[in-house]
């Protein structure tokens, strides 16, 4: 693939990233603008079905995901931010790849073609294609030894139905360490955050979240960096531990290192205020020259 082509993506935000975690969406847009990645949001996308559709009616979930795939142009990869949406869209696409009859049925249903070769990638994959060296060159400031836990949660690696697909383990550490951060990995960084049980069984999720944050505190971390908007929210709202840590979306920290100007607007939306930590590390305000990693 020629390098120009690899920088164009269609983009599926998903419900959480588009609303509750709008700061994650805004910071992603900033990252793409600063790196020159061309993102085109899917026209009129719908919910991927979330955990709920797949829990009570898997066929409905399949159809919802297939509609999204029918909206994606076949000539560029589809970029997805939310690990759950990524999982559902990929799984649906894989099923249609393995059984062309299912794909043709969906094409007839929506009256639009679905490319069997469509690539569905996570944002981390876009960064790998962009290249770590180029990313480092584009950095506006050093993360000054910010000690972060790369918190992946459960869905980005594990789904057994996708075990032959591409995974991105350790990419968050690779990227943020190159930009001057220090990864703290001996924590519960792949333990499930509790997912939708946060709404129904908050006491159960609180004990999980406290374990996760507690392990990060014990390991001496300053903050957690997540790749999942739902994890970010659960880790913030369900933590009752005395010592809380700021929870960043991965795209926020990346945008910060790349010199995005509107970070303050995102950080205001956090329930655990990350500004004192960033101020302490000299990461707020315009980047000073000579600080590049």
């Amino acid at each position, binding site marked *: 693939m020629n390098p120009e082509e690899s920088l164009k993506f269609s983009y599926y935000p998903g419900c959480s990233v588009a609303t509750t975690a709008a700061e994650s969406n805004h910071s992603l847009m900033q990252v793409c603008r600063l790196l020159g990645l061309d993102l085109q949001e899917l026209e009129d996308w719908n919910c991927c079905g979330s955990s709920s559709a797949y829990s*009570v009616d*898997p066929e*409905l979930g399949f159809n919802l995901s297939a509609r999204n795939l029918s909206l994606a142009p076949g000539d560029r990869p589809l970029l997805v931010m939310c690990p759950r949406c990524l999982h559902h869209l990929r799984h649906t696409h894989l099923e249609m790849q393995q059984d062309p009859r299912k794909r043709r049925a969906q094409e007839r249903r929506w009256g639009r073609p679905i490319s069997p070769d469509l690539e569905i990638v996570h944002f981390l994959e876009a960064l790998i294609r962009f290249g770590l060296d180029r990313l480092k060159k584009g950095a506006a400031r050093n993360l000054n030894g910010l000690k972060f836990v790369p918190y992946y949660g*459960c869905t980005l690696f*594990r789904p057994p139905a996708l075990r032959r697909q591409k995974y991105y383990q350790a990419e968050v550490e690779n990227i943020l360490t190159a930009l001057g951060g220090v990864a703290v990995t001996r924590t519960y960084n792949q333990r499930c955050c509790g997912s939708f049980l946060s709404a129904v069984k908050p006491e159960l999720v609180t004990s999980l979240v406290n374990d996760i944050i507690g392990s990060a505190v014990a390991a001496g971390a300053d903050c957690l960096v997540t790749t999942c908007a739902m994890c970010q*929210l659960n880790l913030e709202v369900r933590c009752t531990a005395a010592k809380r840590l700021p929870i960043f979306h991965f795209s926020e920290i990346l945008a910060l290192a790349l010199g995005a100007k509107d970070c303050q607007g995102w950080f205001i939306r956090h329930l655990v205020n990350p500004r004192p930590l960033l101020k302490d590390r000299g990461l707020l305000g315009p980047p000073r020259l000579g600080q590049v990693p």
Partner: protein
Amino acid sequence: MNSQPMPAKTTEVINISELDHHFATEVDRRSQADLKRCYQCRTCGNGCPFVEAMDYPPYGVIRLVQFGMRQKALECATIWVCVSCHTCSSQCPNSIDIAAIMDTLRSMALEERAVIGNKEILAFHLEVLHSIERYGRTHKLGIMLRHKLLTGQWFKDVDVGLRMLTKRKLDLVASKVRAMDEINRLFLPYWRVKPR
């Protein structure tokens, strides 16, 4: 780590004539999980973050299926508590897709109108689906309010809701798919959809 619920010593008699000998095959076919490979090593129960809230640990549910104890398997709370985080299957020495078994059992429980093992969790899922049916996307504030209305727990979690509102994390107006006719079709049998 979590403590597993120890199965209480029981003198319950399993009546062989009441067992459903086709159940395991049926669940296996639908879930594609190859559950015959389970030899009850109990690793899944050790790793599961949610095992405390379950009535049977994951391997217990697999055992119920293997034995053909259809009603117990379909009516247990475990299948609803599972969030498909796949911790169990990543640790399973025989790489059985345990979450897929739970998915299948949930679908079967609904199809057969079995007694639901955790009604509150199902009610939440139905609220999410209601939102998707209405807007094509999920509207968090609407889901939370309706869930509270239906479960009557108005004062549970008010602080969390208010904090999210003040941080503008809960949009008042739902974002909606424009081609709602395409979404509506998914919620109706084809013969109920208005012809063009």
